């Protein structure tokens, strides 16, 4: 489709940055800035993501620029890979700007094992992971939460899991927001949402979610590698808030769709439904979203507990797993940028704060916050470090991963196994859906992020075992 570029002519600011000016459409309030090289730009104009980014630029109270990451692609209302900040005082909050899978995110665990030394027991360990961590639409038979326990997860997130001995105290020091947003209010989460989520803690879910065993195959900056060394075995967990988060989004998109006109808000896309953050509707969504985010961090933490047990069985003390970091990529956060308190919506985008930011964990103050960019299943993933410059470039944000581009055929299992990757997935159909060739080139996406200064390349991880949701 060439009409989009014709409708929204983009100015080339630098070889890696284009801008759709605020004058491109009469209802825009801010410009749209897109990070991409020529090849990624050709892919971006191929879907409706630019039109969606322009729609986001019409939201009341939106400020600065709307940013599109190099992996941006068409979503529901907001494009996936989009960042938009609204003023906390008079701006809106939009459930569509967070997405259905609230706090979908990634965490990286590092072992003390060399991959080569672990190889004789690796296949058995991957199979044990597959048996121990429910995937697909599965429920968790060993962690069904009753009402008060689920409310504690929603209220306190990973802090509650420390009490339950499902998390180590040091885990929460290297989890975004310590795995617990204080603005959460379980009372704003519907009974329907709680019923969907009560037995899903510690499960991968379906879609593009996975647990992947990896080896560090390249270190770009040894001094800033978060303790990662070449040949080391790692585990990457990618999942979110499961049915609970989906129901929270469904509930509040419906609610805001019904009340939006009362606030005098009229938008070009119904899925952008929003309400002023300071309104009762906006406050209720924010409190529910924070609770769902706490559930998602707890979900990844509960999976971590299962992975640790499996690795202890397989490798003993050498299989001890250190949490490197956990970062969200579907969330709205209250952040101070300059003198303003903003509600930063990151949908399919990762926070990437630099060394100087107070929310960067103490132990990473010399490096910057870790950023994880998972590739598609079977391709490399990347570890990057946030930069201080990124605050001005993208509200301190980087991309989420190698976004989907198109669907592929069905022989994925054989392709992956031919590459020596151990695959555990209940559905060949869903395996095909997540085929590497269905995604944009992660190397190119990461290269643009690095060269644009949004985050710095630190290490590359190669998969050796996949448990697919």
């Amino acid at each position, binding site marked *: 489709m060439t009409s989009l570029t014709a409708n929204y002519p983009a100015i080339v600011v630098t070889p890696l940055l284009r801008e759709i000016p605020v004058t491109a459409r009469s209802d825009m309030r801010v410009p749209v800035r897109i990070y991409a090289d020529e090849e990624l730009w050709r892919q971006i104009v191929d879907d409706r993501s630019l039109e969606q980014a322009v729609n986001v630029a019409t939201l009341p109270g939106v400020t600065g620029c709307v940013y599109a990451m190099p992996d941006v*692609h*068409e*979503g*529901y*209302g907001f494009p*996936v890979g989009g960042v938009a900040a609204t003023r906390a005082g008079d701006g809106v909050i939009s459930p569509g700007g967070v997405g*259905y*899978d609230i706090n979908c995110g990634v965490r990286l665990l590092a072992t003390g094992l060399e991959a080569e030394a672990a190889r004789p027991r690796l296949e058995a360990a991957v199979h044990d992971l597959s048996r121990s961590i429910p995937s*697909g*639409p*599965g*429920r968790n038979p060993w962690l069904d939460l009753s009402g008060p326990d689920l409310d504690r997860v929603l209220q306190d997130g990973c802090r509650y899991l420390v009490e339950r001995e499902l998390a180590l105290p040091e885990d929460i020091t290297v989890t975004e927001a310590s795995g617990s947003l204080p603005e959460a209010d379980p009372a704003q989460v519907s009974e*329907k949402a709680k*019923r*969907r989520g009560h037995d899903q803690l510690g499960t991968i*879910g*379906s*879609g*593009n979610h996975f647990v992947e065993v990896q080896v560090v195959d390249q270190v770009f900056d040894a001094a800033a590698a978060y303790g990662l060394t070449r040949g080391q075995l790692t585990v990457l967990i990618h999942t979110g808030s499961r*049915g609970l988060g*989906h*129901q929270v*989004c*469904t509930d509040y*998109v*419906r609610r805001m*769709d*019904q009340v939006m006109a009362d606030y005098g808000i009229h938008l070009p*896309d*119904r*899925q952008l*439904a929003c309400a002023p953050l300071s309104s009762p509707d906006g406050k209720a969504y924010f409190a529910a979203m924070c609770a769902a985010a706490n559930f998602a961090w707890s979900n990844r933490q509960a999976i971590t507990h299962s992975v640790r047990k499996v690795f202890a069985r397989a490798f003993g003390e050498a299989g001890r797993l250190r949490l490197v970091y956990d970062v969200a990529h579907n969330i709205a956060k209250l952040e101070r940028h300059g003198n303003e308190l903003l509600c930063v919506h990151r949908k399919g985008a990762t926070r990437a704060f630099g060394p100087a930011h107070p929310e960067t964990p103490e132990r990473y103050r010399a490096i910057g916050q870790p950023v994880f960019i998972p590739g598609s299943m079977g391709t490399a993933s990347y570890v990057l470090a946030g930069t201080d410059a990124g605050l001005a470039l993208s509200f301190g944000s980087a991309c989420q991963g190698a976004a*989907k*581009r*198109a*669907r592929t055929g069905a022989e994925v299992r054989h392709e992956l196994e031919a590459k020596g990757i151990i695959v555990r997935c209940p559905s060949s*159909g*869903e395996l095909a859906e997540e085929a590497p060739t*269905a995604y944009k080139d992660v190397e190119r996406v990461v290269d643009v992020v690095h060269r644009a200064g949004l985050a710095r390349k630190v290490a590359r991880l190669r998969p050796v075992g996949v448990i697919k949701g």
Partner: protein
Amino acid sequence: MMSVGSIAPWHDIADHTSELRIRLRAGSLGELLAEAGRALAEIQLRGTAAAASGDWRRLEVSAPDRAGLLAEWLNELVYLGETERWVATEFAVEPAGTRAVTARVRGMTLERAPGLVKAATLHGLRVDEVPGGVSGEVVLDI
């Protein structure tokens, strides 16, 4: 309530990256919602034929308009699938105007929740009157 037109119920399911798009046509809003339910069941059962069993159950949903009703209706069925492992396959839908619907449905309980569809979205959602009935379109998050 709209009159019943001449269009036979029809649906088409198209997949796109992380979503499924259902296009619908039927002689009335009630038939359109019933056809949407059959399309969802086709996705949830992954094309395998299955007969309904057990008692009819009553569902009620409401929304600000006809298009919203389509999304609400499907979201209710998605919710029942995930929480009860129950998929509806037979429908008798009675709209009460354009903002509410009462339905009697029958279906089946599965061994495992049908996890593919997670939500019906408002993205590109529409229900329009056309000669002989109504047409609609809804995008499902998967």
